[in-house]
């Protein structure tokens, strides 16, 4: 079968319709300039009004984001603790790159990110595609899959602490009942700690499912009708139409899960505290630990790197997935 053709976007979008009540310019007058100047003459001080209406948002954004971020960046160049402060230039960054614990945290964060990209998102997309076929009970399943997303991460972590407990946890009891080794301390065994922590969230794809299902619902029926006419099977339709058209949604999901793994803190803090021997330590948790140890400047240097990694993730995924460009 030939690949069904995707409806191409129009070369040019139709011009926006005039707003209700807008007065069309007289045919003789130059279109744009004249209209703007007339608008201004009718509503003097409009520019000032817009500026004033933006002011609260700008003030809040500056107060709660720009200024703190600036403080983090500036103090990352200092040796800063509760009782001392001294600018040390890029010393914190130099120390970071020589710090084995930092590299462990970076490695673990990268592994969590890989788990999110290669397991969490594919699982979510697969489930979303299946549920979009409107199989029996799909609404209930969608709700069930989304449930973990509305439960606090800390509460879930506490549940998993009990689940993994080597003495009375459900996992070991089940393994023991099956005649397998039911004594392992999953969260504090150096070999199993990282996968055990990742397993607590990597299959929680509710958000991915919801976003992808919404995108699938937005694909025009005509596209599928055309494929049907061409004799495409359900698998071929999914492979050649649905999945390529999910590019935007998958890209957004990737950005979300990657940023989540960069900031991943609560679960690992509660379950393992970053141990054993830093096997589950993430960059966010390491920054927190350094803050708790009163190395505030060092902690902020880790924070600055996290912001940098986040920006790289956003730019890279946006470009790779051409997020924002429509296919239909």
């Amino acid at each position, binding site marked *: 079968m030939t690949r069904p053709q995707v409806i191409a976007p129009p070369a040019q979008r139709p011009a926006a319709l005039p707003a209700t009540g807008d007065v069309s310019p007289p045919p003789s007058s130059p279109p744009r300039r004249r209209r703007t100047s007339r608008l201004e003459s009718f509503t003097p001080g409009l520019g000032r009004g817009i500026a004033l209406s933006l002011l609260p948002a700008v003030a809040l954004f500056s107060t709660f984001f720009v200024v703190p971020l600036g403080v983090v960046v500036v103090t990352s160049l200092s040796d800063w*603790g*509760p*009782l001392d402060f001294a600018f040390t230039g890029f010393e914190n960054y130099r120390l970071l790159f020589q710090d084995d614990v930092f590299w462990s945290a970076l490695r673990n964060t990268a592994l969590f990110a890989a788990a999110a990209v290669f397991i969490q998102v594919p699982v979510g997309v697969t489930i979303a595609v299946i549920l979009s076929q409107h199989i029996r009970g799909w609404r209930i399943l969608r709700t069930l899959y989304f449930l973990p997303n509305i439960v606090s991460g800390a509460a879930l972590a506490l549940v998993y*602490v009990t689940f993994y*407990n*080597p*003495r009375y946890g459900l996992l070991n009891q089940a393994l023991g009942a099956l005649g397998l080794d039911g*004594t392992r*301390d999953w*969260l*504090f*065994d*150096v070999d199993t700690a990282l996968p055990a922590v990742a397993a607590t969230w990597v299959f929680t794809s509710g958000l991915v499912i919801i976003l992808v299902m919404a995108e699938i619902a937005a694909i025009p029926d005509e596209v599928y009708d055309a494929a049907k006419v061409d004799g495409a099977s359900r698998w071929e339709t999914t492979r050649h139409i649905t999945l390529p058209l999910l590019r935007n949604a998958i890209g957004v999901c990737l950005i979300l899960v990657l940023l989540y793994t960069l900031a991943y803190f609560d679960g690992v803090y509660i379950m*393992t*505290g*970053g*141990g*054993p*021997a*830093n*096997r589950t*330590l993430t960059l966010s948790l390491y920054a927190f*630990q350094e803050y*708790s*140890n*009163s*190395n505030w400047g060092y902690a902020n240097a880790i924070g600055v790197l996290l912001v940098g990694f986040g920006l790289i993730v956003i730019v890279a995924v946006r470009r790779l997935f051409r997020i924002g460009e429509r296919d239909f």
Partner: protein
Amino acid sequence: MRLMTRAAAAAALGVLAVGGSGCFGGGDEDSGETSAQQGEVVITCEACPITAPGNDPFLKYRKELTEAFNAEYKGRYRIEPKPYTPANDADSAQHYQRAATTDTLPDLFTDQATVVRDVARSGKLVDFAPLLEQDGWKATFQDDAFLSLTDDEGRVWGIPEQRDAVGIYYNKALFERAGIDEFPTTWDGLLSACTALKDAGVIPFAMDGDWVTQLMWANLIGTQDGGADFLQGGIAEGGYADNPVVVQATDQLKQLHTDGCVNEDAFSGDYNRAAAPFLDGQAAMIANGPWMVPDLEKAKIDAGYAPSPGSGLIVIPGEAGWASGAKDDAEREAVVAFMKFMTSDEQMLRKALVTGSYWPTTFEPSAAQAKKLEPLSYELLQQADAVTHTYRHAKFATPQAFTTAWINQWPAYVQGDLSTEDFLAALSDAVQRQR
């Protein structure tokens, strides 16, 4: 237009509210002036609770202490409680360090001695050394009461409120089931008891990977020659891997785990992991302080309380203290009045009765008073003079980074992922880095 009217009305209400609060604020100022005119000195206290929810005996004791002081000194001094509840030890340490930096320390607060000494570096704390010399106040304390709260230059940065002995609780019924007649007095005896208890299907020792585990580490170090000195001073310096006493103790503690003498979930750093099996009657022993007695009573555990094998006892003299950021003479005078009130015989006895925690003073209770005290912990405290070794708990001489590193590295070390030297080097690095 209607919207504008509503906005104007809201603004007017806002102005009224601000004005109103200003009026009330003025009222406060007036009452403050009245107090000042009457000569009442008001001091703030972040360790004084306003309410004591639940069954926390320490909250109950401090609330009653504050009320009793305010009643006793009515019209002269008054404590204004500004309770602060930290999330954890590290949070508390940073809170007071920040307060020192911003010159907002309360007139009264409590924290661990290591934190108090750290905050003292700011120069914002009251030095009690000269005040203790007045009126023979210092003589009312035991000799070692100020050991942890005194710096190298002899300045005293806090007044201790308790001095406790920390031993090992054991479940008499489980010991009997395993055929053990009495608590082992040697480390070899403890290993034999461990085997007997395991054979009887009992978890010999409850540990948590942090507090309780480190208590046993301190016992293993402190009962060796030179161990007490290390726990008193050397532990704050690092270099543990070079100390044979520490290396041997660490190996022995690991052996307790690898021999299966410890609960399987002993690595989380969560105290409840140790407390739960002991209070459930599954584990036979746990190291902890007298503050655990109310839990034992609630769990109806028939427990004995003994010194460590090797004839040792952890004694915690003034590891936490009441410190003060009072700025003027009047406030300092009120603070000293409170400290003297708190450490009076009457209040120390009341504290022991309410909390099960004992006094750092020279108070000698009468036979009738002693009879009312909790027998397990009081008898153990009496044994402090009879044991061969007394020493501090490792945790009180080390910064937060030590605990973080311990919780992190201990499971990997026990599993054989790290050598003893590497484990101790990781602890040393953490301590030296934070210093």
